[in-house]
């Protein structure tokens, strides 16, 4: 990033993904969002004396799918560790997580390398009663254990991100990938997708890593971008004023945009990791691996790549379609009807159609994939002009039906290069001698009123290019 400061940010992301399993990571309690507090609890997820964890097989399955989608290496034998610390949202006094042998390691998504992805359990939810809304200064704090024990995959990237905008864009790709895997709701506002960022800066051209800070609590894509931007700016300002960046954990307040320290390196926990003696290692079998592979859909990055290389779509079009699976599916259904001009079809779907139906699934709209394919074919064959086709699409969105039938019923067919159009052009030139003079003088901008006249006369059914050709022909230009 060359912003003139002479510094380049180095950013790594840590993403927590709540898995959409039926039950919690280590017990049979149902997963829920928004239910009354503490109804989805049992001796295991409340950390009652004597209770023991049992690994959720579905969570392993989902973690394998995530690992495959991110191109990770899958550990034949991974183990769970205990991460020990005291907090009221952690009923056992330790979180069961993975440490030195995570289930997935290495990998890449887009332009960012993946360091690892591991399984762990979510903490419960603390609610602080009182003005501050935070534990410090609260009148009382209460705990809702419904969320406690929800399966999480924590994905850690390598420090490959170089700007706040790239962080946001990459997280969008990750979210789409996870959404299409069907393993999570990936909703940042509800907390099923959470992102922390490790941020440092270094002089442009240096390959040494600077002291990093960990930025937490960015619960939307916008806040992620703003928070990282603010932190980069803070670090650059610090270094430029001769101070040093201190390793610490920071809290980003999206409302004020301010960054405050949660704890310094000296206050960092010693988590006393050790292998969880209540669980046995997760040993992968061929059946588990094949089972996960069988459920892998084509993922956004791969689909976009296919659209570019096999169909010749532009990178932007390919991404627009591939990152919304329903749009991609619709595009491919239309392509099966008419595969002649994929880029034009892509433009009509991601441009005109989306402009009319918004986030709605096009398959649920009144416009069938066959209809939009026909419409594109009509435009290509010059049977309908661009302008008239947009009118046809309005009708299709409103009432459905066949494009050709709408064209016929409403008289929207293009007027070709025959006598009819020649006649209209002739009349247009006769009606505006001043413009004709200018045109003859070489000022082609004067063609505007002439074309406008023709379009009015033909109700937009004339092809602009053809009109221009006839004007030149008739004026001998």
């Amino acid at each position, binding site marked *: 990033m060359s912003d003139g400061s002479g510094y380049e940010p180095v950013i790594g992301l840590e993403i927590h993904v709540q898995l959409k399993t039926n039950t919690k990571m280590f017990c049979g309690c149902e997963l829920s969002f928004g239910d009354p507090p503490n109804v989805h609890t049992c*001796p295991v997820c*409340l*950390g*009652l*004396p*004597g*209770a*023991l*964890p*049992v*690994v959720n097989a579905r969570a392993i399955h989902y973690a394998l799918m995530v690992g495959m989608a991110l191109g990770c290496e899958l550990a034949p034998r991974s183990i769970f560790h*205990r991460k*020990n610390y*005291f907090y*009221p949202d952690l*009923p*056992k*006094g*330790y979180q069961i997580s993975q440490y030195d042998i995570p289930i997935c390691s290495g990998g890449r998504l887009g332009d960012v390398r993946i360091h690892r992805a591991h399984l762990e359990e979510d903490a419960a939810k603390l609610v602080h009663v009182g003005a501050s809304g935070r*534990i410090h200064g609260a009148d009382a*704090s209460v*705990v809702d254990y419904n969320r406690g024990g929800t399966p999480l995959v924590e994905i850690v990237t390598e420090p490959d991100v170089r700007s706040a905008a790239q962080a946001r864009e990459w997280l969008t790709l990750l979210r789409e990938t996870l959404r299409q895997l069907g393993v999570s709701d990936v909703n940042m506002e509800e907390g099923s997708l959470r992102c922390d960022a490790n941020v440092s800066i270094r002089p442009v051209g240096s390959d040494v890593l600077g002291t990093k800070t960990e930025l937490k609590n960015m619960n939307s894509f916008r806040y992620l971008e703003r928070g990282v931007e603010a932190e980069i700016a803070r670090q650059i300002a610090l270094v430029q004023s001769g101070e040093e960046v201190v390793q610490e954990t920071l809290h980003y307040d999206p409302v004020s945009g301010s960054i405050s320290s949660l704890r310094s390196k000296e206050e960092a926990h*010693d988590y*006393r*990791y*050790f292998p969880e*003696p*209540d*669980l*046995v290692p997760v040993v992968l079998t061929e059946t588990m691996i094949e089972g996960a592979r069988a459920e892998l859909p084509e993922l956004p990055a791969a689909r976009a790549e296919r659209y570019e290389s096999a169909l010749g779509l532009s990178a932007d079009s390919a991404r627009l379609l591939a990152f919304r699976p329903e749009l991609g599916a619709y595009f491919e259904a239309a392509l099966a009807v008419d595969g002649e001009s994929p880029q034009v079809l892509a433009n009509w779907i991601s441009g005109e159609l989306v402009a009319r139906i918004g986030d709605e699934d096009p398959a649920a709209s009144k416009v069938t994939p066959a209809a939009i394919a026909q419409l594109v074919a009509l435009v290509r064959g010059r049977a309908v002009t661009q302008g008239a086709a947009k009118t046809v699409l309005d009708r299709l969105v409103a009432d459905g039906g066949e494009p050709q039938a709408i064209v016929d019923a409403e008289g929207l067919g293009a007027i070709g290069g025959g006598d009819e159009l020649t006649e209209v052009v002739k009349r247009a030139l006769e009606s505006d001698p001043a413009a004709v003079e200018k045109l003859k003088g070489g000022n082609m901008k004067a063609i505007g009123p002439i074309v406008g006249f023709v379009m009015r006369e033909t109700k937009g059914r004339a092809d602009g290019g053809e009109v221009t050709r006839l004007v030149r022909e008739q004026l001998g230009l």
Partner: protein
Amino acid sequence: MSADLIALSARDAAEQIRHGRISADELFAAYRERAAADAAKGEDGLNAYTWVADVTPSAPAASDAAPLAGVPLAVKDLFCTEGVPSQSGSKILAGYRPPYNATVVDKLASAGTTLLGKTNQDEFAMGSSNENSAFGAVRNPWDASRVPGGSSGGSAAAVAAGLAPWALGTDTGGSIRQPAALCGIVGLKPTYGSVSRYGMIAFASSLDQAGPFARDVTDTALLYRHMVGRDGRDSTSLQHPDEIALPKGVDLKGIRLGVPEELIGEGVESGVREAFNQTLALAEQLGATVETTHLPHAPHALSAYYLIAPAEASSNLARFDGVRYGLRADADDLLSMYTRTRAEGFGPEVKRRIMLGTYALSSGYYDAYYGRAQKVRTKIAEDFRSAFDSFDFIVTPSAPTVAFKLGEKTADPLEMYLQDFCTIPMSLAGIPAISIPNGLSDGLPVGFQIAGPAFSENRLLDAAYVLEQALGFDGSKVRA
């Protein structure tokens, strides 16, 4: 009549109930009366129980599915029993009544046993004398001025004194075998994983194992038969490959006994050594061969154990934080609430081990302590495996001494830890070991330990039974 009922073995009592010769209610009443009478004396009695049932629980009718119907059972405090105090000997859990039963408690209830009471124990099973209980020390029925051993001291004392026909205990480094030895009864520490740990308030997860106490080997086998089984709630539990049989051995012909030199050294007092040697001679008369062998890493077992067990305990006991259950100290902020609750709730031995374990796991020390201890553990397991290539069983004294005086070792934790010198290696190896009484020294019981390969319980019980018959140890006088 009541004395006759108490004199019955558990299997005979079950049999007589099934045939209608005695009633489950009168048997329960006989035991409850004795247990409650002792409990009423508090620390002037044996103090074996922390809770005694006040009504007779309903038992299923005797059947093939419930062959133990109507036989009372004493259960170590640390097993969760629904609605019944389960305090693990700790003030931090004083009055705590869990909402669920431990798997093994459920299994035994299905087999027909009735919950007679919860037995006293060292706090969180940390101790070898039962002097670390928040509910007072337990006394040895053979001599009330002496300890019953620990940590399952209440269960051992209750069975020895005829306050229960049999009992559940747990063994982490010797907590069944050593009190069984000191109280003159039989105690089995089964193969790790053969009995579910679900619902056992944990001390050290990779070592804790539930096991039976009984007056003789046959009752021990019978109780164990109804405890085993893979449990979907305990990932470390395993299906026992054998159905547990009642012992039937008649001699020890062809049985090779190995005596590990490392475990019968200076620490073993002379009376215990004498009884041990006499039992070896008896085993030879019964057809066994006896040879000295080696477990080269066994001398390091105690050190490894006192890193691994406290490390796991430091984490297992983190949940006692005052937030959800048990004691909560008043405080103005979270950190003070934590520290005061734990300062008031835990006793000194528990605090000592939490500190030891926290230190052993801390960043920068892990490899040198916990990591190294795990390597020693592996070596010890290998020592046993290679010993079992040449021997059917490894035999040692169960404890290096007979029951000692209350207060005698409390000032010196290391002296106390040596009580488990002969039992800890088997715990680290996860293998089964049984303690049977093999005589008296100065009028106090001595225990003989037999250890076998993983899942060899049937053979182990057979061998123990043969020796038991030949030894003819009589513990009935303390049940009078």
